[in-house]
Every structure is written in C-alpha cells, then in structure tokens.
C-alpha cells in the first residue's frame, strides 16, 4: 500500500480476488459505464419503493376488519359463456415476459452493432409494453365500471382492496409507461445512429430498467392475483 499505485484497473482476475481487486482499485470499482451503474443503483432504490408498497399491502390485508374480496372471482373473464379465472392477467403477464425476451435480443444485437435490428426489436418491446398498459386500462375499466370497485370502497368487502390494487398496479403501470417512452426515444436514437461512436451500452441500460419492471410485475402478480 505504500508505493505509488500505477495500475488503472484490475478487471482481469476472477472470483474473490477479482472482487477484492475491483473494490480496492483506483478510478472505478465496477467495470461498467457510469450510466449502467447509475441504473443499477436507481433500481435498488426503486426496489425499496415497491417492497414497501407490497409490505404495506400485506400489513393492510392482514389487519383489515372486513372480509377481503374473493380475488379469483373478481379477476375472472367470461368468454363465450365460459368462466375463466385470471385469463386477462395471464395474457398480460405473457405479453410482458415476451417483451423481456425481445429486449434481451435487442441488447444482443446492439452490442453487435446491428442498429436496424436493435431498433426494430426495441420498437417491438415498446409495442408489447404499450399493449400491456392498454390491457391494464381495460382491466381497470372493467373493475371500475362493471364490478363497482373504487379506491375508497367496493361492494364485495374490504375497501382497502381497491385502494392498494389501484395504487400498486397504477404505480407499476406508470413505470411501464415511462419505460415505453424511454424505449421509443432510445430506439429512435439508435436508428438514427447516435450511438455508433459512444457504443450501445445504453440499450443494455434501457434493458435493465425494462427487466426490472417485468420482475416487479411477477411479484405483484403473485401477491395480488394468486394470494
């Protein structure tokens, strides 16, 4: 430790030694662009927001005095006379998971420098995301207009059902909407060739956010629709 440390980075080693070398190196602790690290830290912070929302939901659900509404009944669709529980949510989840796939492909093509395919795949991801938001709007309107569920009350039971449902899915839908806009902007800039020189790390950063939004959905799905 006494002598002049001239090494600039130490990303060659792997395993624990590599970890130690990374953290004790000067200049930078992680071998990644600043934007990517920032996105990771932001997502960590955002994880806390969603965790606190979900924890609050669990606490609320456990402590309400009224009966919790029959969830699988509410989230059922009747198609051609057949009553299918959770159909809409299954479709929405499928769409969102699929969009994660197209996003991953976009990242791959981005690093290959194939800007046309990257932009198309990002655009597809954005379209899938937008259709998710659309279906969510459909779901909300069905709950509000057909089932009479409001944030402050509903005919089936505890008022908090509507409160947490609209708050948490609304907050998540807001994230998806932001993600769609973000994807479209980046896709457009990719297509224009803005990243030829800077490199396509931005596609991966965008992808991190998108995968995070998907992952959060999996938890919301499990806690709201399956519990």
């Amino acid at each position, binding site marked *: 430790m*006494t002598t002049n440390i001239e090494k600039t980075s130490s990303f060659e080693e792997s395993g624990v030694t590599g970890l130690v070398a990374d953290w004790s190196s000067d200049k*930078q602790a992680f071998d990644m662009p600043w934007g990517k690290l*920032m996105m990771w830290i932001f997502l960590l912070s955002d994880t806390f927001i969603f965790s606190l929302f979900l924890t609050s939901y669990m606490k609320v659900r456990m402590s309400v005095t009224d009966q919790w509404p029959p969830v699988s009944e509410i989230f059922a669709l009747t198609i051609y006379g057949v009553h299918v529980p959770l159909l809409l949510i299954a479709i929405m989840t499928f769409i969102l998971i699929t969009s994660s796939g197209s996003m991953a492909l976009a990242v791959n093509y981005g690093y290959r420098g194939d800007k046309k395919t990257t932009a198309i795949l990002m655009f597809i991801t954005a379209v899938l995301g937008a259709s998710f938001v659309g279906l969510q709007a459909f779901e909300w309107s069905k709950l509000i207009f057909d089932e009479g569920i409001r944030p402050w009350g509903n005919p089936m039971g*505890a008022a*908090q059902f509507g409160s947490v449902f609209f*708050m948490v899915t609304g907050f998540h839908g807001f994230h998806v909407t932001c993600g769609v806009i973000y994807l479209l902007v980046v896709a457009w800039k990719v297509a224009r060739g803005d990243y030829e020189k800077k490199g396509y790390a931005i596609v991966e950063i965008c992808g991190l956010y998108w995968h995070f939004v998907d992952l959060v959905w999996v938890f919301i799905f499990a806690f709201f629709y399956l519990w």
Partner: protein
Amino acid sequence: MQHVAIADQVDELHDPTSFITKYIWSQDHKVIAIQYGSTAIFVGLIALALSGLMRLQLGFPDTFDFIDPSSYLQFVTMHGMIMVVYLLTALLLGGFGNYMIPLMCGARDMVFPYLNMLSFWFYFVSVLILLASFFVPGGPTGAGWTLYPPQAILNGTPGYDWGIILMLVSLAVFVIAFTMGGLNYVTTVLQARTSGMTLMRMPLTVWAIFVATILGLLAFPALLVSAIMMLLDKLIGTSFFMPALVSLGENLDYTGGSPVLFQHLFWFFGHPEVYIVALPAFGMVSDVISVHARKNIFGYRMMVWAIVAIGALSFVVWAHHMYVSVMHPAFGFFFATTTLIIAVPTAIKVYNWVLTLWKGNIHLTVPMLFAIGFIFTFTHGGLTGLFLGNVTIDLPLSDTYFVVAHFHMVMGVSPVMVLFAAIYHWYPLMTGRMLDEGLGKLHFWVTFLGTYAIYLPMHYLGFLGVPRRYFAMGTTDFIPASAQDLNASITIAALIVGAAQMIFIYNVIVSLRHGKKAGKNPWRATSLEWQTPDVPPHHGNWGPELPKVYRWAYDYSVPGAKDDFIPQTQPVLEGEQSEEAEAMRK
C-alpha cells in the same frame, strides 16, 4: 469502454460565459453546491425564526397575542421539518456532498452534471411548495414533523385541508430531487476517482457522504411511499392509515386502516434520516480535526468501518421511536438491543476524534473550535440516547422535553456545529477569502455556551414531566411553578443564540468582498481539494491534467518531512516512513 463524459475528460473545461449558464442553469457541481447551500441556509433561517417564536410563547405565555395554539403547532411542525429535511439534508448532501466529492476524489465534475442541475431545481421547487403552505387558507400543517395520521388530515389539526397536502407533495418532490443527486454522488465516488485514489485513500468526508447517500437512496423511498398513501387518504378517501373513527361528533367514512403502519413507514425513513444527517457531519469533522491538529486521523480504517456499520445498523432500529405505540415486548427488546449496539461504532468514532487530538499540535482556529464543540455536544446528546434507547426508561420520558433536548443535542446542534466548522474551513476554497477570525470566535462561543444554556435545562424539564409540543403548561400539579422561570431563561438564551447567527451571516456576506485573501491552501491541508491550480477552482477543477494521488489524505507531521503536511499529490519519497501503511496494518 468508451464512455467519456465531463468527469473523465482530460481536456480542461471552459467556464460558461453567459450569466444564465454560469449561475442559474449551471451544471458545474460547485455552483450547484452553492445554490443548494444558499437555498438551504435561507429556509434554515426561516426555521430559526419559527423556533424563536415558539420560545417566545413558551418563555412568556400570555404575552404575545399573535401566537395562538394553532399557529404554535404550525411553528413546531415547520421548524422541525425544515431543519431536518430542507436544511440539514440539503446542505450536507446537496451542498457539501456536491462541492466536496468531485474535488476530493479528483474528478472534473459529477458524472451526470445535467441530472445534478435538475436535482437542485427539483429541490428548489420542493422548497417553494413548502413555503407556499404559509400562504394558503388554514396555513401550513400543524401535525408535528412526524405527520402522524389520523390527526394529520383531520379537522381540528391546523392546516388539515391545504397545508398537509402541500407538505406531502413537497416531500415527494424532495425525494425525487434527492434521488437524482444521490445517484450522482454514489456513481461519482465509485467510478470517477482519479488515478491513485483508491477507496481506502478517500478522505473520511467522502466516505461519510457516500454512505449517507446510500442510506438516503434506501430510506427516502419509505417517505415517498407513506406520502403517497397519506395523500390518497386525504384526497380520494382511501383508508390506508385511517381507522373507523368519529371526529368532532361526526362519523367519518374511513374504515379499517392502520395508523401504526404509517409510523413504521415513517420511521423506517426517519431513523436512517438521523444518520443521513449525522454521518456527513462525522466525516467532515474528522477531516477538520485532523487538519487543525496537524495529525493523522486516529484509526482511519476503523473510522471507515464504523461509518459503514452505523449505516447498516441504522436500518434495524426504527421502532425505538415507537415504544409508546405499543409493541410486543420481544420487539421492544430487539429494537432496544440494536439501538444500543449502534453506540459501539459511534463510541469508536468519538474515541478516535479524541485520540486524534491527543498530543496533536492543536491550532484553535474557528473551524477547530466548532469541531471540538461538536465532540462535546455529540457526546452529551449521544449519552441521553442510551437512556431513551431502553424501553423502560423511554416510556416515562417519551414525549417530554428530555426527548427534545436529546435529539436537539445529537442531531440538531451537533451537525450544525460541524456545518459551521465546515463553512469556516472550506469558505476560503469556495470564495478565495477567509472569514473574519474575531467574529467567528464570538459566533462560536455564543453558540456553544448558548447551546448548553438552552438544552441542559430542558433535560431537567423533561424529568419533571413537562410534555413537548404543548402550547402552554397550564396549571399542572406535578410541574412546579419554577419550571416557568427555567423556560423563560431558556427563551432568553435561545434568542441570544439566534441573534448570534446573524453575526455569522454578516461575516459570510461581508467577507465575500472584504475578507482577507486566502491564497492557496491556507490551512496547509493535504487533501486533494486544496491542490487545485486555481482557488476557487474553475469549471472542470483541475486545469489541463487530472491530479495523480500517491498517498492517503492524512500525512501530517510526518517525521523527517520538510513541512508538517504532505499533499496527496506528492510522490512517496525514498525511504519515507509511511503513516498510511502503518494505519493500514493496525
């Protein structure tokens, strides 16, 4: 990787020429820091004035007609909220974090200057929203800075209609502002240090601000979440925090909510917030003490790990604010234990400050006086924390003036002491001029002695059982009439200390033009921020080339060296006994 941005740029940056890009929409971290700092000090002065009004009422009840019970509660609330969030958090992280991180790490700027600018302007908007609540019907909220539901949003609490809404919106905007700034600080520390500046060579200021920012990024979400939920309760009638209740003879529509949930969310933010404020103060005071005692900081490695440990522990102690909200004894035991465990790393820090002073070549400059003052106030405030951390002692003392005295000593006065130390210490770097020494000493002694004149008697009032947040004590049997005399003397001391802060403001303003020229490195410090080619540093900080770092930031009074300090940029000499290596072996 090809991600060249400002902080990494090798070329010198040029100062923006137009007034607007230079001072208003500035992306220079130093200008943003000053914007943050001056806005924070401005709202801080408002909060100071509010505390003066509160003290007038407490010291001389029935004398001032313009203070009624409602406005008294509003003063209490706004004083607390402004001081904790809009002054201390903003000044320590937005102000000093912004100024010090790039300079001490050897970067040209924050990694995302544009985001950094947005961060300030969001903060500015949150301040405007907060101040707007003074001018809406009903005035600002009077729910206490903890904003506990259900009363915060119910008729009967001052500002229950407009004030509380503006307060919650303002907090939400503040959280967004903090997040944008915080992402910058953390990423800059991790990724944009200069050559040779390893993590374990960073000055403790940077370490502390770094850890405090991480705490903020993980704790402010709880504030955001609780603010959103309470806004929904207030605006569209959900019942997250609102049980079924009768208010002023009227059955409300709320049903089945949990007020205690809010308390958990709030304190999951609120306790780390204490350390978001305290840790940067710990860091800066370590550097000030080391510079002015001309001695390396005692136990650098321990100091770093103590900061990290305090940060981690601060997330598992929050319910010690809620002992009187009724909890299972097992949880009370758990939270009391974790709370007392925090005393261990904190005590390590206090010992290390004292041991740094031990046999040091102490220069009693103004920053050093404030730093030593901090050790006193912090130790006293910390010791009463040990009382309050225990469930059985906390229960009778809860919501009395003992608590008020405790938290003012430990997280009010102490960080403010360090802020003064830091401003007196780094003012020459920011402006190129020194603050007046005589006025500074006067300011210190009045503030330091005044602090004790205010808060020591409050402990005693607390033991008597005088409750906090009461407009007037009335005729309560168990409180002797002499308590009122004590209250009057506290008020006089508080007004004197408040007035003494004007000396400081005067000093800061007048010294801008008429202060003694500081020149380079007036304190003969080793750390990187004093080694810039220009004082105050220009946009881009380092001239044509980034500095190279060869040693830690604490090479003071090295035996055999020419001066009693060796800057971090000076290569290690042949055969030099390195104090850094010595410290790392321990």
